[in-house]
């Protein structure tokens, strides 16, 4: 065991910190889940790409730095420490890209990845449908084989930032006879294709962060298939694994939240109820534990050259509930002022805690509800009998 960073890692951290300190906007950008905010975030994404910070762990040929997993963790820690803008490209680079690296043809890699890294193509995820939420195998959107490609029909919903994206990756039922997890295929779809309609949907917090996407005989060519025909479930599960696990919620995010919470306490702590002190420390410990758990997982992955395993479900439960708890403690510290939203003259930290709380509440729902995750932990980690 060696908990010293190597000189290379330390140098990497210093470089990232210096660049971020020089480049992160002084004022927070407007929300990336609104139209004007999205544009500002796109600009930021391109600045990141130009400085080679957009996709640090990718090969250099696709715009990366070939950073190790630990360097990636370090970059994320510095990114959140600097209060840098949220990544509107994240569904592409964190969810789709690992799948492309694993299942894509060389041509798909060469075509898709550089444009994704440069934020030229903006990807959204097309998993959920009105009747397929927790039960993803209930997907009904269809892909029908035609000459030279496929015709897509159906509807996707709860598509994060769908209204601002250019492309969608999603699952469609290519074999109408097959049931549940079988007969699904993973497609890559440009949202400007004929027959595709995107309808923005406002979220809980008022931002247009969701979309419904309708497919009405939309044609895509054969090379829009990622992985094998009918292999969609397997291919998608690899993405879902990374969504739950390491890449979606990096520890740096929660360390930064816990640190901001300590700062908030220092500003308001004298008037706070004594019990909040214990809650605050609980949240702070959890953030440290999450970081260390991730470090242990990564150390093990590096040492044994294994991929992320079932710990991704443990992870998802832990970070999503920690995130809610950290924000609850912050709102309790704010007392009556907690209700003051962004745009309120007297809102503490510009209303960031209330906004963040609403965002955090999505955590236990998306990427597989925590009820599903607990089933997964019980059955696959502990070996309890299925229903």
């Amino acid at each position, binding site marked *: 065991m060696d908990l010293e960073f190597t000189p290379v890692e330390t140098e990497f951290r210093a470089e990232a910190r210096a660049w971020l300190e020089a480049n992160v906007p002084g004022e927070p950008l407007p929300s990336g889940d609104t139209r004007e905010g999205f544009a500002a975030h796109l600009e930021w994404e391109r600045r990141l790409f130009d400085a080679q910070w957009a996709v640090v762990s990718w090969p250099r040929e696709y715009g990366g730095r070939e950073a190790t997993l630990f360097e990636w963790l370090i970059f994320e820690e510095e990114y959140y420490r600097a209060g840098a803008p949220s990544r509107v490209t994240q569904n592409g680079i964190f969810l789709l890209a690992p799948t492309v690296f694993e299942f894509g043809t060389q041509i798909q890699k060469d075509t898709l990845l550089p444009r994704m890294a440069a934020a030229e193509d903006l990807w959204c995820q097309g998993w*959920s449908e009105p*009747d397929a*939420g*927790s*039960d993803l195998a*209930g997907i009904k959107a269809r892909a029908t084989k035609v000459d030279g490609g496929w015709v897509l029909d159906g509807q996707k*919903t*709860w598509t994060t930032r769908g209204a601002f994206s250019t492309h969608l990756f999603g699952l469609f039922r290519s074999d109408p006879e097959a049931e549940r997890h079988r007969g699904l295929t993973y497609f890559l779809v440009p949202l400007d294709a004929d027959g595709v309609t995107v309808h923005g*949907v*406002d*979220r*809980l*917090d*008022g931002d247009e962060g*969701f979309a419904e996407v309708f497919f009405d005989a939309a044609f895509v060519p054969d090379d829009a298939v990622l992985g094998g025909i009918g292999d969609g479930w397997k291919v998608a599960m690899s993405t879902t694994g990374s969504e739950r696990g390491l890449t979606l919620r990096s520890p740096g995010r929660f360390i930064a939240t816990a640190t901001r919470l300590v700062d908030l306490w220092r500003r308001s702590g004298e008037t706070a*109820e*004594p*019990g*909040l002190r214990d809650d605050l420390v609980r949240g702070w410990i959890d953030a440290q534990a999450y970081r260390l758990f991730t470090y242990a997982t990564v150390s093990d992955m590096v040492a044994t050259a294994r991929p992320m395993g079932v710990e991704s479900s443990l992870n998802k439960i832990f970070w999503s509930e920690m995130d809610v708890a950290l924000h609850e403690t912050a*709102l*309790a510290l*704010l*007392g*009556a*002022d*907690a*209700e*003051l*939203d*962004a*745009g*309120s*003259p*007297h*809102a503490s930290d510009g*209303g960031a805690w*209330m906004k963040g709380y*609403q965002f955090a*509440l*999505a955590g*236990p*729902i*998306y990427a597989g*509800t*925590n*009820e599903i995750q*607990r089933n997964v932990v019980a059955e696959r980690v502990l070996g309890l009998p299925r229903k």
Partner: protein
Amino acid sequence: MRFRFTDEQLELRDAVRDLLANECPASVVRAAWEGDMSGPDKVWAGLCDMGVVGLMATEAHGGLGLSDLDLTLILTEVGRAAAPGPLVETAVVAVPLLEKIGGSVAETWVPRVAQGESRVAVGLPGESLVLDASGADLLLLWHGDALHAVDPAEVSITVETSVDRSRRGGRVAWEPGPQPLAVGEEGRRLLDAALERAALGTAAMLLGLGRHLLDVTVTYATDRHQFGVPIGSQQAIKHKLADVAVALAFAEPLVHRAAYSLARGPALVDESARETTAVHVSMAKAAAGDAAELAARHALQCHGAIGYSFEHDLHLWMKRVWALAAAYGDARMHRERIARAIL
């Protein structure tokens, strides 16, 4: 010993529930978010007609001469409908305050407020905003222990944005005039009573908000199918909603008991002789706030993504819960107040 409302009290509650079912569907709450107050104004007029706004006013001032105890079930119905408007601040706080001050102030304002001809806004120390300050004809504001009746023309208002957009209000800047309505010990006593009433009235509203959130979630969980079964047949959903039912069931008697205590004094002598009206109010606000927050949390989780969308009505109730659970002392503040009383 009879810990039960009278049939008359239950009938008045039912009448208010009927009014709100007709006049205050979710669309009215949603319209208020966009600044369309025609619906809430109509509801307010209806409540005035039924005597609810002036319920605690004396009959001489056009009121019903009733008490916190009579009002509590009604406030729960108002919460259940998430009806917008400062009913707690008006009917529960301002009316009895003006009555207590009496004289020409009461004679002038109470009848007009009770009949809905005038609006009054109340600013209590520690709150994030003075609700409906902009539309008020009279402001009741505190400066230390001194209570002032303030002309809206003499204040400047900085509008604040609540996460619940149907809660409209702001910070009020003003100069205390030379003639407060009450000062010193008397002012302090009035302030304490106002704070207790605001907390208890809000607790009663929270109960209703929680009930509504539980009801709609039960309906959704019964209708929504995943994995070939209603999601509400799964234990994970059942047990969450059972927890909400338990929390609301045991918060309710605390709210009713505090209303009695405010209306008639503590009574119910027993082992826990440390009890005072303040302790009763704090128990009610802490328990009702926690129960409603639990209801909101589980309602969203059981709804999943659909509940997370703006188009769905769920968030209108959730955000009211967040605002009211924090208003007039959150659960921890009230528990700390109890700690100081009993430890």
